[in-house]
């Protein structure tokens, strides 16, 4: 098991390195001109050259890469030393900017996944009890629908409905209202920090602001999760071993448990893939609700041609995805003995 984890982490690191290098070259090969973005199109050649020098774009590309990776000792810190570079827009360290924005995204995703699972798993199971029945049909059409929706648009609809019309939700303008002083940063997660600081009012306010974005995401996520749980449960209930368990006179509850476990195990893989997918997909919801998470940071950096920030975002998102996959594979192996590590 330990050996498996080490092997997976090693493979993951190699994969990350390939990715970093691929992204590094990709963004430099694309015909964008970050320099003129910063100095303006009408700047003098001198100012242009100065800016190019400041950004380090005048040096040979391999040197730039070496500098970024931190394998050129003369050039100072790089990736190897845990330094993601400096943002060209704000001038502050990408690492600290990501550390500020990432917790919001993780909070949003984790809450959304918890609620989505709590809602979707029972619904999927119930639908599977009578496949082809009216309830099953309805649930199925719902899952097909929810799984194919533009989340940003639903976010806006929710805003219109719950903020403008009903007035039960706050305006989509960030996590805390400008008048609220944020709690001191300990973990970076507002909900956790507010509790640590003993400020339940801030905690509740944050939850209130998370309400609509989480609801939007739960709606979108419920589609694929219900569909998958239902499908796996139908398969498990129709399987030979459940039939045989009934034939051997096992009590109903135990037969149900056999089916449940068999249905949940394969669902885990998909949840991991969804999590990784949403990590990048949260961009749109964050932008609708101005949550200031990693996704919005990504938008800002990309539109501003802020190369170090772009590279940092991709690296962090992929690294987290790989870790989530690994964790869920371990859980899967724990539930399903057929999966060997």
């Amino acid at each position: 098991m330990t050996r498996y984890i080490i092997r997976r982490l090693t493979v993951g690191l190699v994969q990350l390195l390939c990715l970093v290098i691929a992204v590094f070259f990709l963004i430099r090969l694309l015909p964008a001109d970050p320099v003129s973005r910063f100095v303006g199109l009408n700047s003098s050649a001198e100012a242009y050259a100065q800016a190019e020098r400041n950004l380090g774009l005048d040096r040979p590309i391999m040197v730039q890469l070496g500098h970024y990776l931190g394998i050129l000792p003369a050039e100072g810190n790089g990736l190897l030393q845990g330094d993601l570079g400096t943002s060209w827009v704000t001038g502050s360290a990408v690492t600290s900017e990501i550390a500020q924005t990432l917790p919001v995204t993780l909070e949003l995703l984790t809450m959304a996944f918890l609620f989505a699972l709590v809602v979707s798993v029972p619904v999927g199971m119930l639908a599977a009890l009578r496949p082809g029945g009216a309830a099953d049909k309805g649930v199925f059409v719902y899952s097909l629908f929810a799984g194919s929706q533009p989340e940003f648009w639903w976010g806006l609809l929710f805003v219109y409905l719950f903020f403008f019309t009903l007035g039960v939700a706050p305006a989509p303008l960030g996590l805390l209202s400008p008048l609220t002083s944020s709690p001191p940063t300990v973990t970076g997660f507002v909900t956790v920090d507010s509790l640590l600081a003993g400020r339940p009012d801030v905690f509740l306010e944050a939850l209130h602001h998370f309400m609509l974005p989480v609801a939007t995401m739960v709606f979108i996520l419920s589609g694929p999760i219900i569909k998958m749980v239902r499908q796996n449960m139908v398969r498990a209930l129709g399987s030979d071993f459940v039939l045989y368990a009934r034939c051997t006179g096992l009590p109903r509850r135990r037969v149900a448990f056999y089916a449940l476990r068999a249905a949940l195990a394969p669902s885990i893989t998909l949840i991991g893939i969804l999590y990784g997918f949403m990590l990048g997909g949260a961009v749109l919801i964050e932008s609708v609700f101005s949550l200031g998470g990693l996704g919005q940071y990504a938008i800002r950096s990309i539109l501003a041609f802020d190369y170090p920030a772009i590279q940092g975002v991709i690296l962090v998102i992929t690294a987290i995805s790989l870790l989530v996959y690994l964790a869920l594979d371990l859980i899967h192996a724990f539930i399903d003995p057929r999966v060997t590590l």
Partner: protein
Amino acid sequence: MTAGATRDPRRSRADLLLWIGISIVATAIFLAAFGPVIAPYDPTLATARVNIPPPRPADWPMLAWRSIAGSLDTPPHWFGTDANGFDLFSRVISAPRVDLTIALAANGLSLLVGVFLGLLAGYFRNLLTECLMRVSDVLQSFPVFISAMILVALAGRSTVNIVIALALLYTPIYIRLTRSEVLSQRVRGYVEAARALGNPEVVVALRHVLPNSLAPALIQSSVTIGFAILLTAGLSFVGAGVRPPAPEWGLMISSGANQIILGEWWPSVFPGVAVSLTVFGFAVLGNALETRYNN
């Protein structure tokens, strides 16, 4: 065998869903071809009337009659106008030409390349195809939406660049799907039989294995087209897609986003319904294809 004779009501309900899907997709394709032609206003030309709400549904029959009778000076704004004075109805029905074209082209390109590479990787397993799979792995571990943003924003916000970016991101899916199907088909008896009959390997691969390995990729196509529409709209929404004033659903939703807090819902809602229905239509179609294939 006599199953077709007696029609079960539940079956026809499943058919109903399929027909809904087909009609949505057909409408979208029709609008992609003729939307800008039948639009009452030029979708890229602003009128002087700004932020007009849509007429109440109760007034629609009257308006329709009067516009047919020709007793109106200008055609009615069925969906209202937005902050720039664009007629929303014209823009919503013209948008498929942008959205659907991008989605179909990106899907077609990635399908073509992905199936071809997938066949190679599955049928001829050697060092080269192994490398291909590793490259495809790395490509697939990119976060899709952010990568698409990067590609389009840095390459330039043009339709062609969006198509290429989406195709690049979707190709690994098709490689993987086709490869795994080829792997399971190439050990089937009919492939062996074709070889035993004296067919050269290339003929076995192209004439026997390829046609029998297409189904998963084709089914996935319907889903991918839907997601490509979502992605195209999403890119415009964050400002990394097609440029205004092109009639595009995501762009329209985005331009109405600030008004929705103020209660002006129509600039965002109508294009959103269009995206929602279109993508749902493709999802239904994909599901129906999958069900038929599995049975």
